[in-house]
């Protein structure tokens, strides 16, 4: 049997402008020999023709530039989200549309638990879609009064718990005085815990562990299944603690031949001096493999817009809320940037509010003057509120941007109505401006905050439709072709991986998304509904229905 496989497909969309559509792709040793006609590829020598994709459309495997592998671990809990969502095993959970529905689903799961003391956890609840309905301790007590119950909010910033959970954490008492813990008329906590620092003591009692942002071994494997189901072959784990044991685990798990994704974990900045942080990243870089790509840093500058913790420039929050919080001091940011530039370590910085974006640009500019590094590809992550002038500065500094297109669909209405007001809501996640200004751009899901699904993300950037069905900021829409570029080469570029993945052409990794429909032929509205059959990673075929 030949060691060359030629895949035949209904259509292969290469993202290589010299031959944008072909019928065949030849693969050897995990790499692409060429994309073209069968006759062209025949010249490589003996081959096995694999025509299982004869009625499929192949694209370069999608690249998700901002996700968190913890999504894989979350699915061990009960899905309480408003929108339909597919779990790693392929089961689609219908969205729950009311608090009563949430409670009913939790009761169902509760009835299946054998151990009477076992905790019951849920995730992805967002009452904002339920006409201001309330979730609290009393309602969760109706699920169980004897076992601890806790449900994580979709934002990851709020947890709803029952009386038993509060009791186990020592919080079922009067006299608590904390802005993150609302009290009922009886003086007792209502069971709504606002902010990770507040729900952290309760989380272990309801089955969420301390380092909620890190995936464990099973979680990483589950996360990779989601990648196959969504056509994703390269995925970031954007804020990972990367302790030595975790790195060993990730190397082992991703090293398996049948592990179906390239994982790019970024080292989380907190808890280290700038020098230690950069040294760690350099050390990790040398441990990289073809499927685990280490040596990048993630920094967080501010909070979230809907949590009113993002840092906004004038005129501030639409509802008059005070400005948000900084998570790093300018001097520390400056040190990290300078040391990372000198060491050639890319830094991705979370900014949500436009003041945070401004600080990054103000800091990076002088750092680049003193420590020039061509092709640094430092990337602003989310960067949701940037205005045209800030995009021009990004372009001048060689900064990339990864915009949160999904956010616009899920919370765009809230931003319009409540957080930043109509005008700035229309400019949020300004894909059109980014491209017109020449800023290298990706778009993302921030899974598990919103579902991992690059075709949905592309749809969100193309249509700018919000959850209520309005087109918000039509001017910032991009074309289907531009969106498909953003979820392949665009995202790969922000990771310095565009020479390796993101298009189907000679010499690159044989990473493909296998689709049942043609995104370039579908109406833009249908982009998100194109079924994904599975993926090919380094020539290995992964059938989503057989995971």
């Amino acid at each position, binding site marked *: 049997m030949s060691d060359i496989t030629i895949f035949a497909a209904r259509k292969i969309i290469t993202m290589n402008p010299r031959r944008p559509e072909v019928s065949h792709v030849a693969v050897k040793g995990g790499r692409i020999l060429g994309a073209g006609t069968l006759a062209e590829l025949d010249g490589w020598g003996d081959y096995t023709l694999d025509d299982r994709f004869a009625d499929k459309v192949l694209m370069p495997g999608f690249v998700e530039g901002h996700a968190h592998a913890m999504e894989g671990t979350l699915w061990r809990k009960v899905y309480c989200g408003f929108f339909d969502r597919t779990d790693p095993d392929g089961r689609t959970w219908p969205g729950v549309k009311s608090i009563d529905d949430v409670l009913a689903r939790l009761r169902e799961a509760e009835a299946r638990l054998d151990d009477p003391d076992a905790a019951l956890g849920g995730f992805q609840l967002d009452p904002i879609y339920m006409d201001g309905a309330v979730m609290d301790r009393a309602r969760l007590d109706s699920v169980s009064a004897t076992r601890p119950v806790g449900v994580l909010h979709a934002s990851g910033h709020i947890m709803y718990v029952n009386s038993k959970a509060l009791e186990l954490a020592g919080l079922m008492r009067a006299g608590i005085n904390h802005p993150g*813990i609302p009290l009922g008329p009886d003086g007792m906590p209502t069971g709504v815990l606002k902010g990770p620092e507040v729900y952290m003591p309760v989380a272990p009692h309801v089955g969420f562990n301390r380092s909620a942002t890190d995936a464990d071994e099973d979680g990483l494997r589950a996360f990779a299944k989601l990648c196959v189901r969504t056509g994703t072959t390269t995925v970031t784990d954007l804020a990972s603690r990367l302790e030595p044991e975790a790195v060993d685990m990730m190397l082992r798990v991703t090293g398996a031949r049948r592990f179906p994704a390239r994982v790019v974990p970024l080292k989380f900045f907190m808890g280290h001096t700038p020098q230690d942080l950069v040294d760690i990243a350099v050390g990790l870089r040398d441990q990289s493999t073809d499927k685990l790509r280490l040596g990048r840093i993630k920094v967080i500058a501010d909070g979230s817009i809907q949590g009113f913790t993002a*840092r906004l420039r004038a005129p501030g929050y639409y509802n008059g809320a005070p400005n948000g919080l900084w*998570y790093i001091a300018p001097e520390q940011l400056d040190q990290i940037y300078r040391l990372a530039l000198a060491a050639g370590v890319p830094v991705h910085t979370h900014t949500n509010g436009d003041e945070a974006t401004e600080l990054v640009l103000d800091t990076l500019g002088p750092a680049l003057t003193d420590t020039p590094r061509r092709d640094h590809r430092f990337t602003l992550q989310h960067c949701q509120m940037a205005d045209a002038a800030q995009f021009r500065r990004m372009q001048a500094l060689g900064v990339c941007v990864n915009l949160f297109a999904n956010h616009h669909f899920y919370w765009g209405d809230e931003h319009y109505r409540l957080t930043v007001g109509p005008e700035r809501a229309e400019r949020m996640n300004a894909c059109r401006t980014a491209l017109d200004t020449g800023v290298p751009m990706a778009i993302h899901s921030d899974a598990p905050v919103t579902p991992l699904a690059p075709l949905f993300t592309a749809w969100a950037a193309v249509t700018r439709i919000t959850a209520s069905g309005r087109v918000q900021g039509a001017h910032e829409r991009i074309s289907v072709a531009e969106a498909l570029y953003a979820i392949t080469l665009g995202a790969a570029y922000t990771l310095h991986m565009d020479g390796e993945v993101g298009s189907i052409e000679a010499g690159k990794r044989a990473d493909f998304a296998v689709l049942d429909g043609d995104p370039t032929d579908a109406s833009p509205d249908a982009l998100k509904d194109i079924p994904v059959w599975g993926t090919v990673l380094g020539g290995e075929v992964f059938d989503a229905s057989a995971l």
Partner: protein
Amino acid sequence: MSIPVTVIGGYLGAGKTTLINQVLRQAEGLRIAVLVNEFGALSIDEDLIEAQKGDVISISGGCVCCAFGDNLIGAIGDMVAMVPAPQHIVIEASGVAIPQAIAATLSLVAGVHLAGTVVLADAETVQRRARDTYMGDTILRQLTGADLVLLTKGDLVADAARVADWLRDVSDGAEVVQAAFGHCPNAVVLGAVASGVPERTADLDHGAQYLGLSFEQSGTADPQAVAAVLADAALGLVRAKGFVRTEDGLAEVQVVGRRWAVTLGGAGHGLVCIGLRDRIAADVIEDRMLEHGFHLSRA
């Protein structure tokens, strides 16, 4: 026994590290655990270090735990569970953290209580930083929530007193004391007054900046009322700590700036008050304490 916790905040360069080294140096047998989150950047003076294992540095009689990241509550839990348990916990907040948010979080952890929020202000830079485009409102928020503001590097400016006045103004009535070169007695920073040993107050004042007053009690009193008196801004007290006999037994009273707390139980007697020599209203304190049955002890 609940462990007192002091939160130390203030922007980068305000002198938090210097202060913490001083606090450890002056521990005098008090077992202190320090939690650090300035990106793991605390440099503990070499001669204080006995051993280092991972993120935990052992020091004479205590320890320093670096880099709790975003899990403060877990780190405090670890401290409380240590054997032997520390007698005082000091948390060094990061330069951009709002110390009172950390203080609020303490109320959620079993086995600890807040002994005060101390925010450091660099006399040379604090006013400029308070006007900074990015950091100004953060600096002001830090100061507004302080129980006690320590003015550092006052020796480097012409008119430190004016900066102190400005700090009193923006900090919403916090007590402001000067701590040049990080020198500030632990009695002030931690409220670690050795209660029941009033004669020690004579040694309290390293730089003649402070005056200590010790009281003995006759009869019984309402501890809440006594604490409220001591927290009155008109008295000019920085700290007060001690015991009040009540009709139902002993109660411990702790005051830092305008904040006071009463806990029932404990063992000891006497009450110590500390204030700045030039601000303390000794006569007023004496009169008002007398109303509650406390008289100055003449050591």
